[in-house]
């Protein structure tokens, strides 16, 4: 793939605009709250798109196209099963408590609802995890640019990190969010042509169905048994593991996305954020997954296009870029590449802005220095932003050197995260849930996750305690690990709560169902009613599932 002057011009134009937005927003940063939380100043259409864009990193873009080529339309389950229901639940049922609590972060909510140790556990694991995942995606981008364009790994990692640092340091969370929306537009407009060109070249959806095995083009026909589909999952673990535990855990409790909804101007708009975001989200599979499916068909059409290979197998991670080389002439190629950069930057800025807030408020202000003037915390926030970027770069190199260590770390953080949704569910909807119940529930859920991983084997992974059960894929293993963690956390939290003393109800106002005022939905137009919007989103996603069944 070779770039021409016009492609570099487009890339430069994009850099100027993101930096310009950051520079322009610099004057809005007058306190630590403006810098770290946007002080409820962001309009709802912007928070909604940022809610979706913060999750749409380069790894997501590359990975979804890769999964499209590997698994077919079943990949859309990560959206239609694994995101939309959770986003609706978040908007309709959970945002009132996040907003009502006036917490500035998810760990802070845990502190208000439970106690200090639950917050500490969540804050520290979240802070470390964000830095690692931002480093891993930086590594993925650097590797890709090196492979495809021959750019130096160090140069592309440092330049893109420096730009993200510049605009988040200038305008804080507001700047990150505003740029995420610009980046979202660019990703959609830059990659839609690829989806249209590749799918129509393969004969449209009917052409794909005719050319590919049935299992590649049906989302639901082959999920009764894990041996029937390439994902190696069956319907229960798919719906309960991915659709319930993992997706609700991510979309409802991960501060990276929750932070976008918390930046909304008021509770009503905070609730609308994930609900409005659900609509663009449900159509993203057509842009990010379809090209991958089309690539498989194109490779069988005698067009001189073959799926990229690595050693004896396919290198699915390169499907997206090889397609760009086949379909994008100079000019649009620049837009596509800029879109890839944009997705990387929106993912990284998301991580960095979540990291600096949790570090400043939940670690520094809670454990290191409590009663300093606000200007001090603003400086700490800025310092944490720089540190977050520097740590991410370090992690990118660590990943390059020790891939296995990073895999292991991701696995361990997965265990810590898996039970989290059970804690939130009980904490938000059952007044009796006690602080000790939550803490020991989380710990035992994490242990259950590790134990499930140790007792099951899939594709040579896991089974380090005893290989009792053999599963078809690591994906199925992930889903079962999550299910076990959720169930154990739920049961232990309930049991411990029943034998320990709960928080007095007077301290739970704004935090728990029943003692939090929920805004009435009468007298507001239908498009602003959370329950109705949520119902429409669910109905639309059922129709999509039915069409692609």
């Amino acid at each position, binding site marked *: 793939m070779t770039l021409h002057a016009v492609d570099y011009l487009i890339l430069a134009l*994009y850099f100027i605009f993101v930096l310009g*937005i950051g520079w322009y927003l610099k004057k809005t940063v007058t306190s630590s709250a403006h810098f770290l939380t946007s002080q409820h100043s962001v309009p709802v259409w912007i928070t909604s798109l940022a809610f979706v864009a913060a999750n749409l990193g380069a790894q997501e873009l590359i990975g979804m196209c890769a999964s499209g080529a590997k698994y077919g339309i079943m990949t859309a389950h990560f959206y239609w099963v694994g995101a939309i229901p959770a986003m609706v639940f978040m908007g309709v049922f959970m945002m009132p408590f996040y907003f009502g609590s006036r917490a500035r972060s998810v760990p802070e909510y845990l502190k208000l609802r439970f106690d200090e140790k639950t917050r500490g556990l969540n804050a520290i694991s979240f802070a470390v995890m964000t830095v690692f995942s931002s480093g891993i995606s930086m590594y993925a981008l650097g590797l890709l640019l090196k492979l495809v364009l021959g750019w130096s790994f160090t140069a592309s990692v440092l330049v893109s990190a420096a730009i993200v640092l510049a605009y988040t340091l200038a305008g804080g969370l507001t700047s990150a969010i505003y740029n995420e*929306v610009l980046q979202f*537009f660019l990703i959609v*407009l830059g990659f839609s042509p690829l989806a249209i*060109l590749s799918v129509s070249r393969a004969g449209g959806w009917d052409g794909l169905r005719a050319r590919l095995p049935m299992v590649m083009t049906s989302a639901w026909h082959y999920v009764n048994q894990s041996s029937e589909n390439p994902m190696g999952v069956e319907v229960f673990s798919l719906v309960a593991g991915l659709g319930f535990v993992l997706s609700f855990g991510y979309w409802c409790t991960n501060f990276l996305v929750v932070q976008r909804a918390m930046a909304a101007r008021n509770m009503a708009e905070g609730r609308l954020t994930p609900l409005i975001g659900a609509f663009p989200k449900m159509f993203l599979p057509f842009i990010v997954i379809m090209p991958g499916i089309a690539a498989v068909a194109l490779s069988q059409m005698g067009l*001189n296009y073959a799926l990229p290979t690595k050693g004896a197998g396919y290198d699915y991670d390169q499907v997206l870029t090889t397609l760009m080389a086949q379909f994008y*002439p100079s*000019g649009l190629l620049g837009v596509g590449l800029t879109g890839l950069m944009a997705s990387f930057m929106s993912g990284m800025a998301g991580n960095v802005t979540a990291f600096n807030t949790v570090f400043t408020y939940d670690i520094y202000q809670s454990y290191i220095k409590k009663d300093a003037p606000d200007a001090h915390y603003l400086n700490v926030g800025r310092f944490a932003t720089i540190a977050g970027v520097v740590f991410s770069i370090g992690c990118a190199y660590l990943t390059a050197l020790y891939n296995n260590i990073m895999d292991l770390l991701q696995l361990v953080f997965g265990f810590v995260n898996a039970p989290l949704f059970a804690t939130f569910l009980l904490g938000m909807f059952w007044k009796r849930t006690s602080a000790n119940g939550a803490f020991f529930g989380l710990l035992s859920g994490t242990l259950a996750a590790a134990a499930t991983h140790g007792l099951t084997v899939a594709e040579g992974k896991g089974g380090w305690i005893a290989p009792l059960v053999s599963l078809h894929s690591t994906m199925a293993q992930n889903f079962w690990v999550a299910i076990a963690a959720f169930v154990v956390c739920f049961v232990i939290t309930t049991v411990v709560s029943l034998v320990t003393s709960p928080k007095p109800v007077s301290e739970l106002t704004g935090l728990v169902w029943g003692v939090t005022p929920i805004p009435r939905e009468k007298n507001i137009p239908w498009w602003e009613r959370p329950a109705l919007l949520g119902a429409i989103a669910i109905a639309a996603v059922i129709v999509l599932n039915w069409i692609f069944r």
Partner: protein
Amino acid sequence: MDLRKPSGYFFTLLGLILSLVGLVAPDTRAPLTEVNVNLYSGIAMLVFGLVLLLLARRAAS
């Protein structure tokens, strides 16, 4: 800041650049592309950019 403004300017410029490439070098093709894709996506982005600018203008007045 009304975000529609900078986004609008960005996509208007991007659309102009792409359409221009499509007009000046209409035969620029990638191996599997049969149409002047630069021109068509350029026009789409130009329209998107102008719509954003129009919306921003209406909101301001």
